Every structure is written in C-alpha cells, then in structure tokens.
C-alpha cells in the first residue's frame, strides 16, 4: 500500500510512517498542506492521511482541492477534534473516513487497509457477498452456509454484511461500532464482543472450518481458509 501522510506534528508523523513502514507499506510524508498537496498531485497514492490542522494550507482545504481536481484517492482525516460536527463536516467535504487522535495504531492500519481495498466504483454495490461456502444475499436478507440456511437477527445481519464486505481485512471494534451500530462513542459495554460471539456461534459452529477470526489486539476478520 502506497500511503501519503500529511501531518505537521513530528512525533505523530514519525510514529505513523515508521509503523506503516514496518508493515511493508510505502509512505510519503509531508509536514504542511502545500507540500502535501504537491506530493498528492504528482504521484498516485492508494490512500491519503491528512491531519485536520495543518500549517500553510489546512487539511480541509487540501481535501477540497483534491476533490475539485477530481482526484478520487481515498482520504482519511486525522483530527484532535473528535466531535460529531467535525466528523460530519469532514465526511461532507469528501473524506472517506475520520479518525480522532489519540488512536491505536492497529485502528489506523485497519481503516487504511479498508479504504485502499475499497472498489473504485462505489456506486455499484454487490447484492450478494460470498466467503468460501458462506453466502449473504443483501436483497433477500438471507444467509446460507454450505447450503444450510442460517437465521440472523437484523443487527447480526448488518454485522456479517459489513465483515463480508471487508473480507480478508481486519475491522476494529470502533469501526464496527461506527458502521454497524452508528455509535460514535465507546459504550464501555461488550456489545460488539457479545454480538460477534453470537454471530460466530451461528455461522461457524458445526461447520468445521471457522471463517470469523479474532485478531488479537486489533479486531476481527472474516476470511476463507487458504
């Protein structure tokens, strides 16, 4: 994954760049909005991380300029302002995801991976998701594994659909809370864990090979056996 990182704080920049580098990703780093924009327009990155508060050219302006130039590269906004208004503003300005500081590194990686793997044609959504012998039909709201029908509650269905859309990717607890529950705060209760375990009991138990995996210290991942 080729990542452009625009962040003015030296510590954070070093932290992210080194972390991504260790995972084998290639990182271009810029310390202000103007040079970041220059890098963004001169190379083809898979995903761009922009800090909201930048010297010379603010993060939101960089994003607006990119979008005005019809650059569709996925953008993740980093910010110290984690409130709902700032998040909505960022998403409306064309950001693809939003992460409040301080964050756990695994969270950033999971979100960047999900963004980079997002299909370019976002308008055409698949109606059927398949992982190994597990099938999910979004139109009929039905789930089958190995030909057997599985009954899921609405929330479990949404959870499974989200996991299957990100097949092979790690999705974090926070990503699930935001995308499946619409909770933009930490409920401090094991609501995600509980539903994951219920879902796992329904789709994996008795089927031999487990598809839904817990990635320790990071999140969850659904993937076909290799």
């Amino acid at each position: 994954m080729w990542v452009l990182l625009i962040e003015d704080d030296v510590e954070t920049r070093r932290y992210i760049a080194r972390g991504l580098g260790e995972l084998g990703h290639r990182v271009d780093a810029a310390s202000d909005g103007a040079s970041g924009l220059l890098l963004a327009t001169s190379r083809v990155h898979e995903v761009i991380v922009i800090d909201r508060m930048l010297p010379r050219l603010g993060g939101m302006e960089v994003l607006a300029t990119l979008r005005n130039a019809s650059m569709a590269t996925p953008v993740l906004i980093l910010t110290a302002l984690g409130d709902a208004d700032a998040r909505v503003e960022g998403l409306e300005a064309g950001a693809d995801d939003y992460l409040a500081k301080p964050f756990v590194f695994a969270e950033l990686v999971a979100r960047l991976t999900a963004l980079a793997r997002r299909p370019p044609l976002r308008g055409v959504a698949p109606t059927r998701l398949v992982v190994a012998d597990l099938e999910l039909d979004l139109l009929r709201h039905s789930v089958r594994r190995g030909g057997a029908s599985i009954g899921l509650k609405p929330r479990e269905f949404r959870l499974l659909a989200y996991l299957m859309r990100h097949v092979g990717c790690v999705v974090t607890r926070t990503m699930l809370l935001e995308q499946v529950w619409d909770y933009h705060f930490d409920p401090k209760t094991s609501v995600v864990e509980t539903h994951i375990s219920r879902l796992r009991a329904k789709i994996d138990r008795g089927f031999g090979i487990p598809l839904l995996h817990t990635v320790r210290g990071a999140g969850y991942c659904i993937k076909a056996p290799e």
Partner: protein
Amino acid sequence: MAAWGLACLAVAAAWCGVSAWTMHIHAGRLLRQDIAQVMQTMAAVPSAQRAAVIARLARNTPDGPYFYGYRTARAAAGPVPVGRVAFGWQTMHLSIGGSAARRVQVLALVWPMDGGYLLVARELREQRRLEQGLQMAFLGTGGLFVLLVLAFCRAIRRHYRLRLRCMAEDVERMAGGDLEAGLACAGHGDEFDQLARALDSMRVRIRQRMDDVRQVSSGIAHDLRTPLTHLRQRLDEAQRQCSDVDAYRGAVRRAISDVDQVLDTFSALLRMARIEHGQGREGFVPVDLSRLLSMLVDDYQPVFEDLGRRLDAHVAPGVYCLGDGPLLTQMLINVLDNAWRHTPAGTAVAVRLDRGADRARLVIEDRGGGIAAAHRAYVFERFARLDAARHTPGTGLGLSMVAAIAERHHIDIALTDAGPGLRVTLHIHLLAPPGRARSGAEPSR
C-alpha cells in the same frame, strides 16, 4: 440640571401667561353677564316707574358697583356720558356724584328704551381687581406646585441614586470575586427589584458554574492522578525488574491501558462540555423513541445475558420526541450500563416505555442495592463515585453525561427506590408522530 430648571421655568411662564389671558377673558365674560342680567331686570320694570326706580337706585348706591343712566324725552335719571351715545357694549368714562365726585372708566351696555336709552354700567376697576385676585391665587398655588414637583423629583432622584449605588457596590463586590452574599432587594417589586433579582440569579449561576469548575478540576486532578500514579509505578517497576521481553511487553500493555483510562476520562469530559455547550434545540429532529429503545434492547439483551443478568422490556409503540438520536442512545446506554454494573449477577433489569398525555415515561428499574436518598442528587455530579463503587472500574462520568443529555432535552430524571433496587424515571416531552414523509428519524446520522 440647568436644562431641566430652564424647562421648568419656561413651562411655568407659559402656564402663567395662558392662565392670565384665560382669566381676563373669563372675568370680562362674567362682568358682561352680570350687566346683561341687571339690564333685563330694568327692562322688566314698567316704563312709567322706570325713571323713579332708576333715580332711587342711583341715589341708594352712588358708588356702584352698578351705575344706571336713563334718558328719554320726558325723563332723566343717573349719570350719563357727555355727547351722543351709541347702543350696545362699550367702554366709556362716567362722571359720578356720590360721596366723592369722580370720573370712572366703566363697561356699559346701552339699550334703546322708551324713545331714549337705558345705560347699565360697571366699573372696570372691578374686573381688574377680580383678575388680579384670581391671578394671585393661581400664581401662588402654581408656584407651590412647581416647587413641590421639583422637591419630589429631587427626592426620587436621590432615592434611585442611592439604590443604584447600593446595587453598583454589590456588583463591584461580585466582580471582585465575592459571590457568596446575595444582592440587596428592597422588596418594592419595581424594576429595580427586578434588576436586582436578575443580577442575583446571574450571581447564583456564576457561583454554581464556579463550583462546578472547582469540583471538576479537583475531580480531574484526583481521577487522573490515580491512573497516572499507577502508570508511573508500573514503568518504574518495569525499569527496575523486567529482565526479558515478555515482562516488558506485559508492563507496556498495562501502561497503555492506564493511559487509555486517562484519555477516556478526557474524551468523556470533552463530550460532556460539547453537550452542555449545545444551545437550545439546534440540530434536533423527530426521534422514534419506541424504535430507538427497541433496537437498544435487542442489542443489549444478549449483552446482559452474557453478563449473567436479564433485561426485560415493555416498549409502547409510536412514541416520538424531539431530540438528537445518538445522544439519546448514549444516555440510555449509560443508564443501562449503570444498572448492570451496580447489581448482582442473576438479577433482572426492567425497561418500560409508556405514553402519557403530553409526556412519555421511561422507567429503568434494577434489583440491586439502590442509592440512598441522601446520595441521589450527588450521583449526577461529575466524578461522583459512591463509596461502594469506589473500586469498580468506570470514569464516574456516566451518570453526569446522562444528566447533561437529559438537561439538553428538557427531560426530567427522578431516582426512586424500587424496593429493592434503583428506579430511574425519565419524563420525556412527546411529539406528535411525524407523517410518513418525515419518518426517517432513527438513531443514525
């Protein structure tokens, strides 16, 4: 003050002038009425006796106030002017006899009578005297009145100055930082009292906020000190004792969880500040409370099961309110969270949403130890941790977040004894269910 005095003088002068003029007109009219009346009486006297009557009158009252003159071809009585005489009203001079012969200026009415004329007159000095008397009376009372008004104004000014000075002193004292004593209120129920009351309620609110800040800062200091102390101890210990990578990893993991706790407290405080900063009902939309609660119960029933508890729910359908869905969700989650944390395993928590006349009633009831009546108000304060809960995990901000969100939505919260357990009752203002076109309100963005 000079302008005010000048204005007073001008008004007084104008008033005097106008009153003198009116007086003059009025006195003249009175005089004419009297004369006309006497003339009519004279005209009613039979013409044969007229000359005799008039002669007698002139003789009896030689010095006035009325003078009578009568001239015909056959008779004459009383004083008459020299030369030709015109009929009607006129001012003239008459030479009268009486005690001391003199010439007087009179107002006279001359009527043709019996081929000659009859004259009834009254000395003009009379009118002047009347006018002067009236004017003196008017000027006297008027002057007194003006003086009284001036004195009254001065007294009022003094009174208000005094009250304003008192108030200014109180406000200065408040500005100086002394917010304990209230503002003096004279109890007259006037605008000054209103102002004093408004200032006093401002003082109370400022003091409350300052108390909040004081309490929050000491709460932050205390609550952050604990995890930071742990963190320091752990790092110190790791530095001294860790000999292998695994031991270091464990120490780092624990250190990170300590830092996370500090960060959690901070973000909860920030969130609460934002909720409290939010003004009025800005950003509120119709929320299907029944649907929101049902979804929440569906999500939390398995969670409660895994925690060895039970969540029972009865949700009346079609209950709508105006609000912020995500905030309401967070409020209810915090109440549920509080319920399971402070109740023993194996017990049930009951949630019930009922529709009232104008308000919905949402009750969350547990079978735990409850909260003593004395502590019920305290638990909504920031960093409030009852002794029993002092050593359980949590930021001590959950219920204050509930209070902040409830206040934003004008929701009344009551904590009562469920015997045993705690009953949290929320009274939520209802909204008529929106039409189908607007039914998109749900706990989402």
